């Protein structure tokens, strides 16, 4: 997710589809300097990061920002700190035992 948002063009794409569902072709129109395959690649990264949803309608693929973005960010942060505090607990308790072998 961090990687997905590191690119300014991907953030610009995300802004475009924040409130509207758009087909990739229409998204590409906003970036005349970028090739269509490059836009598809950006959309793929955003989709894999859970930041946009993809829906097929006939031959078109429609994209829209997922409102769950903040929830996903919070989940990521919570997992991050849960893991970190587990590591803290392990380090503190190991160090204490090493200092007090008879404790």
């Amino acid at each position, binding site marked *: *997710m961090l990687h997905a*948002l*590191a690119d300014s063009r991907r953030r610009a794409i995300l802004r475009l589809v924040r409130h509207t569902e758009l087909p990739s072709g229409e998204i590409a129109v906003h970036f005349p300097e970028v090739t269509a395959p490059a836009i598809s690649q950006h959309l793929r990264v955003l989709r894999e990061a859970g930041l946009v949803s993809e829906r097929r309608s006939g031959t078109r693929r429609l994209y829209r920002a997922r409102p769950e*973005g903040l929830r996903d*960010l919070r989940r990521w*942060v*919570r997992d991050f700190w849960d893991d970190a505090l587990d*590591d*803290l607990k392990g380090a503190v*308790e190991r160090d204490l035992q090493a200092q007090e072998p008879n404790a």
Partner: protein
Amino acid sequence: MNVSEIDAVVSEIHIAAPPEVVFAYFVDPDKMRRWFGSRVQLEPRPGGMYAADINSQARARGTYLEVVPPSRVVFTFGWHDDPNIPPGSTTVEVTLAGEREGTHVRLVHRGLQTPEMREQHGQGWEHYVARLAVAAAGGDPGPDPNANPPQGGT
């Protein structure tokens, strides 16, 4: 839960060591390195910097706001080069309370926003700062377009 906790992430754990022992792992770089980051530089005093590199990509940066041994540490927190959680954008508050021959650690991470939410704030402020600049220079910024938002659909 109070209102300010709604946008916060909370993580808690029990550690079998007294608070004064656990506290050191938040302010002593050698001890922090044992659980967080491989390169750590800390200035544990209000206004002092906080830098912990997990790896070359993930570099945590912040500033200590409160350092109260052995019960409380507060620091701003962000990741270098990360639009999700840029340095200075969020706050981490750690409270250590003695319990059951050990310590209850409670970590609260506040201020999390998506880049879009942050950008909306930013655009709002930039809009008004620009208008203020015009007005302060003796000009007329004109009616505020936000004062009468366009009605109806598209």
